[in-house]
């Protein structure tokens, strides 16, 4: 370690003054690199990822549920109001959907675009599910793989 003068009273006073000012602010995060690497959160004015809407459609079909039944089961309002052009799901809506479908809420939030995908295996499963090519059997297999990635583990009711 380099030798440096011990912290002086002036250093401490400066740090104390800055810490007090820092306390009045919410955060100090700098995001240039995160934006470059696509790590910033999706914004509400963007479309939700195709994988999310397609997953809900396939799941309703697989479980023989209508949109209305899902809305009732999850106690979630899925109606799209006239003039409301934002189709991006809210965090609360995704969590309610996850409960209704018995999916892991954190992973469904990632898949819905509310937060970026952190789980590499989920990312791979989502990419396979939305791939344009493939037979219907392969698409079914990709769907089932994605559902397995989203299933709640037994110790996480």
């Amino acid at each position, binding site marked *: 370690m380099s030798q440096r003068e011990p912290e002086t009273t002036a250093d401490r006073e*400066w740090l104390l003054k800055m810490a007090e000012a*820092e306390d009045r602010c919410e955060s100090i*995060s*700098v*995001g240039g*690199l995160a934006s470059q690497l696509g790590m910033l959160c999706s914004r509400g004015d963007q479309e939700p990822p195709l994988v999310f809407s397609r997953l809900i459609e396939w799941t309703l079909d697989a479980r023989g549920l209508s949109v209305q039944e899902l809305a009732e089961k999850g106690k979630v309002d899925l109606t799209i109001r006239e003039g409301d052009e934002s189709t991006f799901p809210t*965090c609360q809506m995704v969590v309610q959907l996850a409960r209704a479908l018995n999916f892991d809420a*954190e992973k469904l939030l990632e898949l819905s675009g509310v937060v970026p995908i952190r789980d590499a295996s989920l990312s791979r499963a989502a990419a396979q599910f939305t791939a344009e090519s493939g037979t219907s059997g392969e698409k079914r297999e990709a769907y089932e793989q994605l559902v397995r990635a989203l299933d709640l583990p037994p110790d996480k009711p």
Partner: protein
Amino acid sequence: MTDSVQVELILRDGGEFIPAILHRGLRPEDLSLIEREWGPARNQVFQDLLSIQVPRSEWPESLHWNWETKAPQLRLLDSKGIGVQCEGKWQGAALTSTEPHVARLEEGRKPLVYVDYIEIAPRNWKVRALGQQGRFRGVGSLILKEIVAQSFEQGFQGRVGLHSLPQSELFYRQVCGMTALSRERHHQDLLYLELSRDGARAFLN
């Protein structure tokens, strides 16, 4: 690690000054190692916010960052890193670069230190909705002070530029005295700010 110096942080609980180490030789790929320490704390905050249904707009904006998943890209970066350790744990980190960034506040394409990244450890976050105050105070200021000092050492007269997350704009504008220049589409509308030569001197005093 190539170089480290002794500094101090302030313990929130009691206000005691606690010895810490500022490392100057962090490599970008070291962020993925730091993430292994920070990841579980991020997840805990995430779960706690979800469990009490805090609106997403109130979540810390770097809550979902995961540098471990970006390890291959980090290895390609030509940035230098700073990290602060205290109690054997990483309390904050930053990455900076110089090329190809130039100052926009001054004429003549003067060089500056561009801050690619700053973040403090999740244990130091203030998360109002959870009543979390953060263990150490002053981590962000200490890191920025080192960056400004590096700008002087490199002959850039304290000039620093960065893209702030929205929740951090107040800190860089009002506390650090940086000038807000533009919101940039190629950085997802993040605000670009610069610290001028005069601003740098004022910040250090």
